[in-house]
């Protein structure tokens, strides 16, 4: 191996300019690979973080993915029973026995859960009416699973505990009705009498549809307002590891029977979009390295052509075809390794420079920096791809070199 390395180095160092051109191709390929990959993965992670932070990791609702098995079918599972036209019994909607189910979920490690009764209500103020989404919550548990507390601009979510007739509304709704902290308004749900409630908090998320229509009241008050005593219809769950949401949701759904929707499942279209985007990105940056590998192919092909007589004489000395192939594959590996090392260093410089670029998108008050991902996998991926390309590029000339028949060359030289 040492001998092959010496010969490989000898070939590369005697063709300095061509070697340098090949090397530069690999260096730039790896550097651009890293810069683009870190930027794209950074923006992906930033996007997912926002997605994950601003929505529950798992939402358990009072729905089933499949209709429940009928008792008759369970009793005579082997029987020739066909049940059709089943009408649901009239009942109060919600998660049945939610306290036991909540206890089960609370006992799972690495998560926080809040029960919510979610419904629709009509808000009346000064003769104007507006349909709103009403969430009945327990303020203490909500804080652990939602960032709404951080979005409060006046009052607090906690004020609901002190004032059972309190309501927290969004800034959009407050603006529409000209409401402020302490204003009183009437809230009613279909089939229930109207109740007078006092604004104890105003939030602003920046998401207009949410700020215009979402309201929070105390869970017990929501149960009265929506006429669903002792019921909740949602568990909102937040995990320590958001990426475990899919598995945890399956586990919860299997245990309690109700539909548990993870953020990943709910955002499947977005995650698919990001995957497609990554495939496009890696295809483009890989193309740079593939182009660079043509430089190596060109260099090594030229060396093989120029060194045909040397190859012939080495084979006449007793070198095997595989010895000769090894020399040229090593040349590709040397260019790949050195190119990757310098490329990684240059890529880090590019990444640092990109991370300091500050942009102010239209309509945004604060400048944002380009999101750069510094994860180690991309360095390994860039280097591995560069080495792989170099190996493939080197193998073709190496195979040709190994196939040189010394007599054909010697006969032409003498």
């Amino acid at each position, binding site marked *: 191996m*040492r*001998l092959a390395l*010496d*010969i490989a180095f*000898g*070939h590369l*160092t*005697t063709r300095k300019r061509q070697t340098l051109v090949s090397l530069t191709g690999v260096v730039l390929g790896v550097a651009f690979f890293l810069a683009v990959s870190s930027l794209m993965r950074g923006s992906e992670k930033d996007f997912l973080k926002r997605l994950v932070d601003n929505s529950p990791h798992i939402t358990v609702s009072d729905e089933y993915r499949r209709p429940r098995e009928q008792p008759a079918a369970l009793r005579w599972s082997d029987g020739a029973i066909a049940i059709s036209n089943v009408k649901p019994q009239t009942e109060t909607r919600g998660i049945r026995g939610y306290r036991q189910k909540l206890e089960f979920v609370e006992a799972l490690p690495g998560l926080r859960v809040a029960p919510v009764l979610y419904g629709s209500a009509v808000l009346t103020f000064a003769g104007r009416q507006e349909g709103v989404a009403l969430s009945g919550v327990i303020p203490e548990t909500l804080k652990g699973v939602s960032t709404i507390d951080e979005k409060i601009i006046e009052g607090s979510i906690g004020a609901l505990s002190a004032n059972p007739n309190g309501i927290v509304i969004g800034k959009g709704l407050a603006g529409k009705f000209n409401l402020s902290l302490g204003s009183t308004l009437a809230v009613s749900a279909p089939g229930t009498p109207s109740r007078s409630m006092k604004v104890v908090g105003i939030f602003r998320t920046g998401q207009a549809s949410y700020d215009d229509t979402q309201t929070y009241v105390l869970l017990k008050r929501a149960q009265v307002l929506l006429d669903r005593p002792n019921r909740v219809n949602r568990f909102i769950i937040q995990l320590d590891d958001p990426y475990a949401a899919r598995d945890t949701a399956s586990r919860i759904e299997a245990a309690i029977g109700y539909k548990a929707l993870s953020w990943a499942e709910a955002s499947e279209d977005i995650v698919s979009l990001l995957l497609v985007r990554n495939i496009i990105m890696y295809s483009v940056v890989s193309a740079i390295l593939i182009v660079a590998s043509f430089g190596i192919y060109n260099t090594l092909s030229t060396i093989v052509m120029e060194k045909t*007589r*040397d190859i*012939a*004489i*080495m*084979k*006449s*000395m*007793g*070198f*095997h*075809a595989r*010895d000769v192939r090894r020399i040229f594959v090593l040349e590709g590996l040397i260019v790949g390794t050195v190119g990757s090392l310098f490329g990684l260093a240059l890529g880090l410089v590019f990444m640092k420079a990109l991370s300091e670029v500050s942009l102010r998108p239209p309509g945004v008050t604060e400048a944002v920096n380009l999101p750069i991902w510094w994860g180690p996998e991309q360095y390994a991926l860039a280097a591995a791809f560069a080495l792989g390309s170099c190996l493939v590029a080197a193998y073709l000339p190496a195979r040709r070199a190994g196939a040189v028949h*010394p*007599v054909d060359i*010697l*006969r032409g*030289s*003498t």
Partner: protein
Amino acid sequence: MSAVLRAESLVRRLEGEVPVTLVDGVSLEIERGQFIAIMGPSGSGKSSLLYLLGLLDVPTQGRVWLDGQDTSTYREDELADRRLRKLGFVFQFHFLLAEFTVLDNVTLPMRRLGELDAEAASARGMKLLGDLGVADQAAKRPHQLSGGQRQRVAIARALANDPLVILADEPTGNLDSASSANVQQILRDLAHVSGKTVVAVTHDGTFASAADQRIGLVDGKINNEWPTRMPA
């Protein structure tokens, strides 16, 4: 004495639209320590015969025995191993590797064989260069040497693994008369003093006159009248 190199009915034919027979039914036996000159007109198949005897080429028909072993069943790698251990080649052009020093060129076959460590290989390389009178050129690159010096380095490289047989293809073809005489003397000494078998293809009658035996080749066939017609 036993035959170190034996050929039996060697035929080498190049297939194609017009098949060409390079070597046509050559049989010969070469003893250990002999200096053999193969002579003949251009295109008579001298080099082709040398390549067959040197296991660089495979005969279309016939067999070659090297050191008593039939090589006709050997695979390519086995032939390469025999060349590495038992044969040394000297060509008309020196074919030294330009990237390496003279000493590195000489130690190349030893490093490939891998039986000597780097220090021992260098010491042997220096001794061979010393024996051939070019030890002082050891650190130079081939392009810094004269033609005669390069050919002596090529001979040193051929001797690197202490081969049984040296095969030389027009070794003096590119040299002036003084260098040519020097190389001729070296090859004769290798046979007569060191006991190597030397088989050399040559056009040079003076060179051939130093050989123990001259084999004439005409149209790929042995024709022993040919050497006698050559000027001495």
